[in-house]
């Protein structure tokens, strides 16, 4: 085992990268372990509400953060954490690849994984008409009929992006009003290709053995239970990543979100958390909030290190 880090950050999205930027400027030796560099925001085709950037792709915004963190001296590795163990005053972080690192503090910024519908046909037709990424796959549906499932910014924004290619885009939402920002809802309303189907859930994804041909609805649309489609994009939110935290005993809420206080402290001294993985994301799960969390978590780690005699 090599050097002991001052801080290991788990997650390379906006929360983790901001924690790293601040940590580096606090002169803390920090390591970032992440699966997706730039985080979930890299899936967003267009971001128009991050201060300082009138319009930028999620991917570019994420990459700028990665580059900045690297430039300040952080080591950023593509690794998935298997578990964290307490080792006297230190923490041992073990990766799925079999690597082991030692650190004095940890910031958990592992974000979320895309939530699945968990209906028949969803897994079978993944990549064959079922997708979780409009910025990746919208262009495959040129002149086709598709549906976005969900009512959030990702769903409505995704619908607007997909409408650039598709002939028709349905937004299928379980509630009676879209919860996306009015700015996105206005863009969708103004687009004649986009139609919203409210108070409806998809109960099955139908295919012909090769690709998606439609979906089954729990509430008939124009009298029919089956809606013929060429593609389905699922945007129903995220599940907090965090099985790797179970052995450490980090307290989570009933939805698996890591509990944090205003200082981004968890129930374990020396362990902090930031971003979509935390209970703070219930207030708002946005990049700007994740970044703020990351900065505060780094400050808390810095203060902890100053006071603790190792």
């Amino acid at each position: 085992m090599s050097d002991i880090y001052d801080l290991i950050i788990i997650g390379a999205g906006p929360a983790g990268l901001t924690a790293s930027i601040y940590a580096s400027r606090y002169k803390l030796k920090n390591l970032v372990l992440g699966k997706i560099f730039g985080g979930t925001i890299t899936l967003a085709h267009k971001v128009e509400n991050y201060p300082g950037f009138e319009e930028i792709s999620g991917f570019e915004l994420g990459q700028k953060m990665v580059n900045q963190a690297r430039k300040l001296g952080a080591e950023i590795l593509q690794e998935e954490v298997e578990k964290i163990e307490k080792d006297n005053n230190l923490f041992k972080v073990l990766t799925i690849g079999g690597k082991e690192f030692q650190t004095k503090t940890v910031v958990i910024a592992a974000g979320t994984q895309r939530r699945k519908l968990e209906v028949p046909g969803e897994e079978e037709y993944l990549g064959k008409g079922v997708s979780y990424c409009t910025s990746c796959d919208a262009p495959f549906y040129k002149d086709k009929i598709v549906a976005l499932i969900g009512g959030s910014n990702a769903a409505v924004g995704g619908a607007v992006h997909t409408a650039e290619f598709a002939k028709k885009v349905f937004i299928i939402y379980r509630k009676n009003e879209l919860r996306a920002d009015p700015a996105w809802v206005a863009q969708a309303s103004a687009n004649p290709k986009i139609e919203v189907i409210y108070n409806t859930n998809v109960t099955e994804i139908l295919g012909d053995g090769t690709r998606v041909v439609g979906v089954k609805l729990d509430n008939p649309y124009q009298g029919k239970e089956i809606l013929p489609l060429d593609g389905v994009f699922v945007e129903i939110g995220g599940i907090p990543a965090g099985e790797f935290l179970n052995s450490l005993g980090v307290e989570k809420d009933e939805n698996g979100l890591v509990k944090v206080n205003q200082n981004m402290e968890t129930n374990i001294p020396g362990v902090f958390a930031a971003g979509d993985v935390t209970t703070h994301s219930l207030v708002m799960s946005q990049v700007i909030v994740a970044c703020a969390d990351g900065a505060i978590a780094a400050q808390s780690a810095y203060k902890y290190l100053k006071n603790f005699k190792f």
Partner: protein
Amino acid sequence: MLILDDSNFETEVLKSDLPVLVDFFAQWCPPCQMLGPIIEELAKEIEGKVKVVKVDVDQAPQTSQKYNILSVPTLILFKGGQESKRMVGFRSKQDILKEIPNS
């Protein structure tokens, strides 16, 4: 890394003696760009056992249609000219290696 199109897919992939891992990608797709460096690293690790190539779906529309590519990135492992395994979406190097039996 070799980037194929419709003209050379058959020769380089279907007629290859070694198994071939094909990374179907698109220029516009962010996770594809993230997968890029991972594929490069992976290619070095399995060199000699598995050939690794990339296909830009825009440059290979017929091949993409033949293999029903509706999502990028899609990784397909070919053995003896036949599709042996398919992985859809971004994944880590370890996840990909798990799916490739060591020959």
